[in-house]
């Protein structure tokens, strides 16, 4: 089984109430800092949501912000951020408002090479217990422990 280990720097926890644009920028910040993506990547993610709706909501309470490789990806990477307060997204065409608190920002260089990262992410999301623990976490350290001890 492939196992993608997150950098310690790519795990974040925030207490502040933020809007979805801020949440996306915050979730991408560690990837910008380490040079995996440029600032353009954040703008592309926000723009895509404006155009396509909140397509990044991939499971209850979980968002997978991402854009295309050509939108400023230098190298593959993942950053996981937990917001303690709900991040509200614009309603989709059904009029239903959605929110998320676990943000997994994904940077992919092409459609093939990030499969092991996606497999790891898939393992997290299908693990209800882990997601619940993440939602209830109270510090960056706690998230780190949860992720490093979770088995895929």
């Amino acid at each position, binding site marked *: 089984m492939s196992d993608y280990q997150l950098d310690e720097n790519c795990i974040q926890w925030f207490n502040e109430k933020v809007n979805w644009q801020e949440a996306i920028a915050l979730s991408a910040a560690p990837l910008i800092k380490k040079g995996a993506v440029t600032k353009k990547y954040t703008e592309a993610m926000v723009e895509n949501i404006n155009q396509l709706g909140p397509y990044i909501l991939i499971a209850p309470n979980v968002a997978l912000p991402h854009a295309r490789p050509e939108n400023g990806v230098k190298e593959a990477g993942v950053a996981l951020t937990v917001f303690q307060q709900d991040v509200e997204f614009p309603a989709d065409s059904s009029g239903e408002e959605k929110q998320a608190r676990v943000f997994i920002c994904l940077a992919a260089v092409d459609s093939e090479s990030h499969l092991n990262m996606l497999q790891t992410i898939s393992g997290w*999301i299908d693990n209800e217990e882990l997601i619940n623990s993440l939602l209830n976490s109270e510090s960056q350290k706690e998230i780190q422990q949860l992720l490093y001890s979770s088995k895929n």
Partner: protein
Amino acid sequence: MKVLCVCGMGFGSSLLLKMTADKVLKNKGVKADVEAVDFSTAQSVQADMILTNNEFASQLQGGRAFVKAIVNMASEQEVENAIDEFLSQN
């Protein structure tokens, strides 16, 4: 059978969904061609079944394919239920 997994970009959530669908189909022993595509491509590809999010599901409905919205793209249980529903109708 041909299954399309559709998302905005064609390589984030749709690939995640494809991984889940591949696992489920393999476990069930159902032979299928599963492809992850973006929304605009999906409109021009023939398929028997389309798995996607709520937003795109409403826009892709009405064609030949059986369309099902998936809430948790990593949930094998949810995808299996969708596939069972499709198989029982065909």
